[in-house]
């Protein structure tokens, strides 16, 4: 009896593991190698933009949802809607100027996606939050200052 149960469990585990690895491994593993560590570790906003090949962005009005005052720097909800910009959105980068590592994330948009990004970021202190959007018609930036009233964590 015990042996039977054990065998069943082992088979089930094996099946799950192999299907999971089939699903996840190929694309994720190849993407992991491409993580731009050097860019992520840069310490100033300007350097990051240069590294991303996004410098010289035009200041543009975009629909940004972000609080004026963040009560908790550990989670600041931010959202940008860049679908009104000219051209198809290719990349959106989120930068938090006051942080030790300003670059929060770069999202790459393939065909059939809408240029909208909502997420939550950490902010160590009061500072500017920038969305940099690259479309096939140019690079656009929108910056907003967010005041952080209680210090978040060190990130």
């Amino acid at each position, binding site marked *: 009896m015990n042996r039977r149960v054990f065998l069943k469990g082992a088979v089930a585990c094996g099946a799950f593991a192999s299907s999971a690895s089939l699903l996840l491994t190929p694309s994720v593993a190849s993407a992991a190698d491409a993580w731009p560590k050097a860019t992520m570790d840069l310490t100033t906003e300007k350097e990051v933009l240069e590294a991303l090949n996004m410098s010289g962005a035009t200041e543009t009005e975009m629909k940004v949802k972000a609080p004026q005052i963040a009560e908790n720097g550990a989670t600041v909800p931010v959202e940008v809607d860049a679908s009104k910009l000219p051209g198809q959105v290719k990349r959106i980068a989120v930068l938090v100027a006051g942080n030790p590592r300003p670059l929060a*994330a770069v999202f790459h948009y393939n065909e059939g996606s809408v240029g*909208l990004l909502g997420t939550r970021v950490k902010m160590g202190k009061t500072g500017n939050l920038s969305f940099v959007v690259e479309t096939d018609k140019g690079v656009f930036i929108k910056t907003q200052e967010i005041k952080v009233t209680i210090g978040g964590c060190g990130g």
Partner: protein
Amino acid sequence: MANVIKIRAKARKGVIDIRGLMSHPMETGLRKGKNGKLVPEHFIKHLTILKNGVEAITSDVNATLSKDPYIHLKVSGKKGDLIEVKWIDNKGAEGYGKKKV
């Protein structure tokens, strides 16, 4: 099953509205723990959103995103499409979630 991603997806006027919530510590490696030592970094590196098995949105993520990251994205599509979200962190752990619109 700690690495399951919660997903909500709704189709409206040809656009699928995706909201996802992951469970992850997102340590930056800069914060000190209770013992006064730095907490080692542990964060999601890549986030991928697939529609019907095709990559719609990919991303490189830094530890600056908050703990238990939340995302809100849109892709064009219709009811019945399959949305999948997956992530991989700097320790090689993976998370996966899917939702039929």
